[in-house]
């Protein structure tokens, strides 16, 4: 029989080794990414205030924390935290997905889905779509490699130039729907994974997750739609 207390403390911490621990890493990094996604949306919506405001906001990110912190420092800290969170999130996602796939070597003739949602069932492929989208997004607006007419510093121009190409806008809209679905199940799921779901939470967390996810998707989608409709030019 397994002793109650084992003799040696293993090298890797329990929260990294166990599947629950990996889910906790996924939930924590997911919430970090979610906070970024919300902050990023609030910033992006300034595009509706016109080129001057929007470009000033983008430039202002570089002097965040001034005069206390040197120029660009906080932005770099944020970038490093985000890259770290993305890597940890994907690493944990791959680890738990592999564990689950190997946990049922022989499948069913048919297993009926009763309780689960479309969002829950598309987390893995949705995540892959988000990752692919993320790479394109960075090449488009950050590095300017795939932008039709990239002007460093003129963020407003770059956004309009890209979204005028309708397939780019369409892909963006699809990606944001996927992000909305991912956030819906992800946020709901994170309450569960982090053990924050106590009985009263159970009733409102679906609603909260749905509202947050819906606002995020609609907010982001409004920008390419406004460009194509000629509202932003």
């Amino acid at each position: 029989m397994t002793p109650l207390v084992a003799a040696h403390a293993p090298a890797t911490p329990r929260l990294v080794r166990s599947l629950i621990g990996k889910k906790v890493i996924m939930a924590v990094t997911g919430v970090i990414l979610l906070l970024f996604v919300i902050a990023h949306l609030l910033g992006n919506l300034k595009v509706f205030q016109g080129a001057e405001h929007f470009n000033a906001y983008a430039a202002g990110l570089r002097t965040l924390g001034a005069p206390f912190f040197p120029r660009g420092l906080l932005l770099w800290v944020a970038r490093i935290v985000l890259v770290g969170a993305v890597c940890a999130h994907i690493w944990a996602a791959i680890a738990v997905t592999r564990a689950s796939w190997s946990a049922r070597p022989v499948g069913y003739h048919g297993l009926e889905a009763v309780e689960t949602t479309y969002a829950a069932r598309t987390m893995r492929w949705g995540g892959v779509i988000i990752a692919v989208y993320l790479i394109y997004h960075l090449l488009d607006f950050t590095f300017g490699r795939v932008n039709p007419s990239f002007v460093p510093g003129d963020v407003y121009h770059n956004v309009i130039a890209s979204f005028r190409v309708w397939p780019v806008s369409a892909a963006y809209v699809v990606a944001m729907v996927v992000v909305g679905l991912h956030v819906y199940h992800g946020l709901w799921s994170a309450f569960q994974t982090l053990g924050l779901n106590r009985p009263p939470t159970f009733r409102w967390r679906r609603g909260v997750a749905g509202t947050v996810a819906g606002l995020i998707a609609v907010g982001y989608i409004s920008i390419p739609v406004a460009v194509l409709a000629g509202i932003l030019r």
Partner: protein
Amino acid sequence: MKVTLHVWRQAGPTAPGRFVRYDMTDVSPDMSFLEMLDVLNQQLIARREEPIAFDHDCREGICGACGMVINGRPHGPQRATTACQLHMRTFPDGADLWIEPWRARAFPLIKDLVVDRGAFDRIVQAGGFITVRTGSAPEANAIPVPKRDADLAMDAAACIGCGACVAACPNASAMLFVAAKVSHLGLLPQGQPERSARVVNLVAQMDAEGFGACTNHGECMAACPKEISIDFIARLNRDYIKAAISHRQG
């Protein structure tokens, strides 16, 4: 009534398996699902064929021995009902029924519909118990238990260890079972001394048995004949996070 069965037949753990079709007539709607299988087995024995192996014991929904996936639903389509308590009247006349064993690496197949659920026993052995003083029985009312905790602990203790949660889970995760065992003892004063060692050891054993990772689909709760809530999974996660950070060895 008439039913057509497609039953998973597999002679042994490593033998190849397949669905075999059986057409049944004169099935009474008042038979339980297992009684219907008993009748079929009598017919098979009369024909000198191998009867279908399936697990069962109490046949009153309390032991957790029975269990098979019926038309894609562990224990069949009726909520909060074990296969032994399911009646044929649940199905329409002429129904087509696909019957399969629980599918999980951690539940290796023994024969036909029988799987080895020893993994659950080993999880419980890893810490699903409390330390008690032996000798004369303690005074029953000496340890006060708040009503809310007593009720919740009873809800968790209703788990009969049937494994339907694992069978229903798209990830073949055992989180609902482990959550029930951890919560049932962790909610009561008697379960406190080993509380953090228990959750750490049960979870370690769960992983070692090769169950998958919960992604909060909630299918376990829908399949559970005792309607154990996934609230208990949140409680398990909460206990585990606390213990993993503070519990020093293990």
